[in-house]
C-alpha cells in the first residue's frame, strides 16, 4: 500500500506563491480561505547572518491525525494510502476538525458550509498526474511521492535528513517534510510551531466531564435495574393484594 507524503525543498523554494494560486484555481477555493499557504517571514537576523524564509505549508495528512479524532460524523478519515480526506456528504460543518488541526490546514467553505482542505490532489494522483502545487512549482521545490517506496524521491530526501514540522509537545506524525541545508527550517519552526490540538469548550465539557458522567449514569441505571429485576425474579412476583 502507499503512504503519500511531500517534501518541500527550502533550498530551492523562492516563495513565489505559484503553488497557492494553482491550488486555489484547481479547487475553487474562495478568497480569503486557502488549502495551502506560503507565509512569508521578513528578513531577520544580524548581518551577515540574515535569513529570509517562508513557511510553505498544507495539510500534513498526519499519521495520528487529531482532526480524524474530532469529527462527530466520521466525515474526515485517513485512507489506506495515507491521504486524509473529507467526505462532503457526511460533513456538517461543525469545524471541530479545524480547531483540532495543529497546522491550521482546514477552513469552512462558505459556499457549501462544509470543511475543505488539501487532499493531495487525489483526483489527479489517481490518474498519474502530480498534484497541482507540485506541477506548477517553478523552482521544482515540491516533491510528492510514496514513503512506502524506499526508492521514491520523498523517501530518499527524508533519509537524507528532511524534517517534519513537529515540536516537543506536538508530534502527530505529519507527512510533510522540509529539506533545508541552511538552518532556515528552524526559523520557520520557531515562527510557526504546530499548535496543540484545540478542543472548543463545549466539546471539552463533553469529553472530560459529561461523557464519563453519562457512562456512569447509564451503567449505573442499567445495573440498578438489573439488580432490581433479579431481586424480583428471586422474590417472585408480589401480588396486588398486599
Amino acid at each position, binding site marked *: 500500500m502507499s503512504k503519500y507524503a511531500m517534501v518541500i525543498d527550502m*533550498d*530551492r523554494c*523562492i*516563495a*513565489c*506563491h*505559484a503553488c*497557492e*494560486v*494553482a491550488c*486555489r*484555481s*484547481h479547487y*475553487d477555493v474562495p*478568497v*480569503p480561505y*486557502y488549502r495551502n499557504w*506560503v507565509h512569508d517571514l*521578513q*528578513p*531577520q*537576523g*544580524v*548581518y*551577515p547572518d*540574515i*535569513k*529570509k*524564509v517562508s513557511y510553505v505549508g498544507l495539510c500534513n495528512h498526519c499519521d495520528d491525525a487529531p482532526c480524524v479524532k474530532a469529527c462527530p460524523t466520521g466525515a474526515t478519515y485517513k485512507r489506506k494510502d495515507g491521504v486524509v480526506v473529507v467526505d*462532503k*456528504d457526511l*460533513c*456538517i460543518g461543525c469545524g471541530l476538525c479545524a480547531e483540532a488541526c495543529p497546522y491550521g490546514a482546514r477552513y469552512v*467553505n462558505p*459556499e*457549501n*458550509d*462544509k470543511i475543505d482542505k488539501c487532499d493531495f490532489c487525489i483526483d489527479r494522483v489517481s490518474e498519474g498526474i502530480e498534484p*497541482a502545487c507540485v*506541477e*506548477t*512549482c*517553478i*523552482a*521544482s*521545490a515540491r516533491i510528492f511521492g510514496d514513503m512506502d517506496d524506499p526508492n521514491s524521491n520523498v523517501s530518499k530526501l527524508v533519509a537524507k535528513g528532511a524534517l517534519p514540522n513537529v515540536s516537543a509537545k506536538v508530534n502527530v506524525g505529519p507527512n510533510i517534510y522540509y529539506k533545508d541545508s541552511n538552518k532556515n527550517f528552524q526559523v520557520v519552526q520557531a515562527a510557526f510551531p504546530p499548535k496543540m490540538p484545540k478542543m472548543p469548550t463545549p466539546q471539552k465539557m463533553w469529553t472530560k466531564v459529561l461523557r464519563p458522567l453519562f457512562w456512569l449514569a447509564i451503567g449505573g441505571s442499567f445495573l440498578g435495574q438489573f439488580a432490581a429485576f433479579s431481586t424480583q425474579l428471586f422474590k417472585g412476583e408480589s401480588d396486588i393484594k398486599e
Partner: protein
Amino acid sequence: MEKKISRRSFLKLSGAVGTGVAVGLSAGTSKAKAAERIKPKKVEKIASVCEQCFWRCGIIATVEDGKLTNIEGNPLHPNNRGKICARGNAGVALVYEKDRIKNPMIRVGERGSGKWKEVSWNEALDYTAEKLLAVSKKYGVESNALFSHGASAAFINDMYKFWGSPNNAAPSFAQCRGSRDVGYELTYGEALGSPERIDLSNAKVIVLIGSALGENIHTGQIVDFTNGLAKGAKLIAVDPRFSTAASKAKWWLPIKPGTDTALVLAWIHVIIKEKGYDVNFIRKSATGFTELKNHVKDFTPEWAEKITEIPAEKIRETARAMMKAKPAVVVHPGRHVAWYGNDVQRARSMAILSALLGTWGQKGGYFLKSKFPTSYNALNIPDAPKPKRERVDGAGYRFPLASTGEGLTQELVKATLSQKPYPIKSWMVFGQNIFNSIPSKKDTKKAIDNLDFYAVVDVRPTEPTWYADVILPEDTYLERYDSLITVTGWYKQYVSLRQPVIKRVHNTRPGWWIAMELGKRLGLKDFYPYKDYEDVIKFQLKDSAISFTKLKKDGVFTFPATPYLNNGESYQFNTPNKKVQLYSKELKELGFDPMPKYEPVNDPGKGYFRLVYGLMPVHSHGKTESNPWLNTIISEPHLWVNETTGRSMGLKNNDEVIVENQDGIKSDKIKIMMTPGMRPDAVFLPHGFGGNDRGLLNYTRRNVSDNNLISQYNTDPISGGTGLRVNFVRLIKENKILSPTVEVSITGVSANKVSGIKHKGESDRRFHIQPKKKQSAIREGC
C-alpha cells in the same frame, strides 16, 4: 376523556414520515450540491500564451462548458516547461474580474469627472476616427501620438505607422531595459534579448546587480536560476536590500545605491591585474584591452570600498570566484535598469566584465541566438509612408541610440507639454498605465490638458481611463489572437500561438481588430486585406515548416537551436571590426566616455532616504492589484526600513507612516517592515500599487504608489532612458517628521558623502551627430 381516532392523525403521521425522509435525504446536501462541482459536460484543454507579464510563457487553459476554470503551464513549451507563476495561474480571475471595462464608453462630463455613456463599437470607433482626423487636419498627422505596450500593441503601432505618425512610445525602453540594450549593443553589437540569453542553469557563478530574481519572476528564467543554484552555482547578489535572491546567495553585497559601476570597475581591475581574464578570447575577439587596462588601473577594491561600502576583500573574493569559474559566469544584464541616468555606462561595464570572462557563446555564460530555419509569408500590403516630420521624442537623433521602435515616453510627455518642436494634440494610450510607469506624474496629467483628444484602450479601468474622451475595452489575452511570438534566442527556438481559449465575456474586442477598424476609418483599408486574424496567421505559416493545425493544438512549435560556439570557434560580432568593443569608439565620437567611469549620484539629505522600488512575485506592475486571487496574498505593499534606523526613529514593525518626497508629495498611510535586511540610507517600496484607479470599485485603493513619489528623474544622455532612483523621502508619523538618530553601516565600512552633483541635462545633448550603426529594432519582448 375520549379522543377521536381520526384519519386525520394517520394522514398527518404519514405526511410527517414522507417529509421526514425527503428532508432527511436532502439534509446537508442541498447547499453542498449547489456549490458542488457538477461534472461539466464538455472539458477542453486549449493551449495559448500568458500575458500577465511580458515573458509570454506557454499555458494550457482548462475550459469547462465554456467557462475558464484553470490555467497550467504548457509542458511542451521550451521556455517555462510546464510551470507557471502565481500571476499566470491567476489569469482565470482576471477574465472574470468584476471591474473590467465591459463596453466602449464616451465621456459625457468634464475630463476626469467619471461620467460616461455606453456606446456601440461603431459609434466609439467612428467618434475616435473623427477626432483623430480632426487633429490630423488641423495640425498634421504627426500630431497624433501613441503610448502603447504589450503584445497586442503591435497592431496599433503598425496602424499609426501606416497612417504616417512617427510618434509612439512604450515604457519598455526608457523606463525599463533600454539602457542595458544600448550598453550591450555598443559592446557586443547586439543586445541579449528578451528572453535574456543567459545560461543560468549551467553557470558556476551568477552575478545579480539588482535583478532580484525570485521576486521578479519570469518563469523560464527562474526555472534555470533555481536549477543552476541547485547544481551548485555560487550567487553574488549586489543589492541594497536582502532580497530572495540575496537569501540564496553566497555573497550578499549590500551596496550603496548608485555606486554599482564602481564595484564592477573594481572587479575588472582585479581580473585584469590578477590575469584572471580569458586571454584567448580577448586576444582573438576583443579590441581596446590596453586602453581598458590603463583605464582601470586606479579602480582598486580599496578605492571602490570608499564608494560602495563593500569591504575590499569581499570585492577581491567575488572577483576571484568569477575568474575561477569562467567562462561559466552569468552576469545578468539586468531588466529594469532605469536607475540613475548613468545606466548605459553601468551596462557597458557589465558587458565588459562578461567579455573579460569570455562568456560569449559559452555554456554557463551568454548563449547565442540561432538562425530561424523557416520564414513566414508577408502580407501583401503597401509600404508605410515616410513621416513628413521628425518624431518629437528625440529617439534616433537627440538620443541617437534610443530605439525608434519603442520611443521615449517621458520625452513625448515633455513635447506634448511644451508643444515643441510641434504640437502634439492627441494621445491614444493602448495597454500602458502612463500614470504608473512614466515618472513625474503631474507632467503627464498636465500634458493631457493640452490635448484635443485623448483615448484609452485597456482591459481594466486604470487611472488613465478616468480622463479619457473615449474608452475602448480590449479583450484579455485569454480571449484574443495576437501575432505569432517567435523566439530564436533560447535553448530551443520556438514560435508560440496566442489564441482565444474562451468566448469573450464582455463587449470587448482584440487589439488587432481595434487597430484594423480604426485604420479602415482613417483610410487605411489597403493595409488590412483580412477579416479575421486567424487567417493572417494561417497565411503566414502556409509555406513555412510550421503546421498551423499542430501549432493550434500544441500552442508551440519548436526547432533545435545552436546556443553555444563550437570549440575554438570565434564569433563575428556585429561591430565595425567584428570584435567586442571594450573601448567604444562610437561613444567617443558621440562625445561620451568610451570606457565607463564611476559617475556619482547625490546622497539623500539629512533625514531623507533614497526611494528604491522593485517587484513582488505575486504581482505584475499595476496590472494585478485588483486580482482577487493575488491581492488575497499581498493586498498592499510594506515599506522596508532598516531595523536599527527605524528603532532610532521610534518606530515598531507594522507601524503606519506617511511617506513624503523631496517635493512635498505625500503618500497615504503605509505599513513599515523593519528589517536588518535593508540599507539604512534607503527605503524599499514594492512597485505597482496605489494607482488612483477610481473605476476599481471592488477593490480598496490607497495612494501607496512608488511612481507618485517619483517626481524627479534623470535622463541618460546616451540612451534617453530615465533614472528613477533619484527621489528621496522622509517618514512622517502622526504628523511628526521622523529623523533617524544613528548612523548605521551594515558592512562596517563607511562611504564618502556625495552631494550637489549637477546631472547631465538637455544642454549636453548633441543634436547633430548621427550614429554610424543602426540602433536595434527591439520588437521582441515587452
